[in-house]
């Protein structure tokens, strides 16, 4: 299935893309499967969203969809249907920082 993904500005620059991305995900749409597909399509993003060793979300990133904060949900939990059907994007957000 095709999942829409919105990257933060620094990662769009790194991946050399403009605007929203679409990634092809095999199997159930979960945060893990979406991020795996994203990293496979854009290898330069490896390690910039999840720690390469622990696979944990980087502390200053958040994952949103359908006006929900999914950052602390299980990476293997199904994403909302609206994301799986392509109606809504999966949002990767750089946390506000700097005071």
């Amino acid at each position, binding site marked *: 299935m095709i999942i829409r993904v919105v990257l933060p500005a*620094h990662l769009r620059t790194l991946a050399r893309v403009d605007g929203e991305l679409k990634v092809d995900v095999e199997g159930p749409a979960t945060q893990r499967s979406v991020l795996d597909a994203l990293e496979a399509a854009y290898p*330069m993003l*490896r*390690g910039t969203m999840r720690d*390469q*060793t622990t696979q944990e979300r*980087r502390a200053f*990133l958040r994952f949103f969809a359908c006006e929900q904060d999914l950052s602390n949900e299980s990476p293997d939990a199904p994403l909302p249907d609206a994301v799986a059907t392509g109606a809504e994007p999966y949002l990767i957000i750089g*946390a506000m*920082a700097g005071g």
Partner: protein
Amino acid sequence: MSGVRLLVGTRKGAFILTSDGTRDDWNVEGPLFAGWEMYHLNASPADPNRLYASQSTGWHGQVVQRSDDGGETWEPIGNEFTYDGVPGTHQWYDGTQHPWEFARIWHLEPSLTDPDTVYAGVEDAALFRSSDGGQTWQELSGLRNHPSAGSWQPGAGGMCLHTILLDPSDPERIFVAISAAGAFRSDDAGKTWRPINRGLRSEQIPNPTAEVGHCVHRIAMHRSRPGVLYMQKHWDVMRSDDAGESWYETSGNLPTDFGFPIDVHAHEPETIYVVPIKSDSEHYPPDGKLRVYRSRTGGNEWEALTNGLPQRNCYVNVLRDAMAVDALDPCGVYFGTTGGQVYGSANAGDSWSPIVRDLPSVVSVEVQTLA
């Protein structure tokens, strides 16, 4: 005509400054990798078009970039830095043991002979090597497996491996320095290591002459004489004439022997440069006067170089990797400040002028001398 290319890393991007051999007029390109912390950019001595750059942020971690055309274009390369085996622990600020955790690359040192081989000094302190142009990285874990490693602890800036010196006369010999563990040497291309800190004295540690625990800020050598090492320690400017087997102090008449960078004149192995800084907490030049100090006697006797540098109301710092010398004659000397200035001297330090004044805070400066 020959020229020079400065590779400047800042807190918010990288800049490439170029000039012809006169070093009078400069072209400023950047920011590259805008918004990212660029701890270090460095060039292969074997191929001037091959550049490596350490790019990181707190949001996205470590990225490594490579250019094969002298900085015109860049490609992200491998950024997986996995400690060899079970990472283990080192001492933390509170005295507890803390797991070794990769934070960032502080220093990239390309091989003297092979553009595809490059070393990375990282925080938490370890040395990695790539032999495929940076696509994959392997830890030289003999360093971190030294029996003393569990007692290493971070300084205020983190437990970083910040200095890597490759011996031009012996491909098996590598020097590194770690804050705050000290200097180490390998004589077998990085397989095994031993501390080389005899003669260092640090009153800030329980045993001032301990084998490890010294806050070494920077080590420099002249390639024609790799057995002679110059060190800027947290306090004290030191010298070794026996490849680090022993050290003696050469602070001499410096106004303060604290500082970060130290470098050697390209053609005069006994001419060295430091930037004295007031400390322990101020970390700006004494009396608001930015002065480079030059010794033409390998230490002990120092002269202040002030011509063209601000001599009042100057409160910037010069970080450990932010000084470099070119190989032209007369030797060019360059340094960047935390205030965003990059100063250059085309006459070995006799006079200085700002190449740029208002960059983001400068972390590192390297220079390439181009044919």
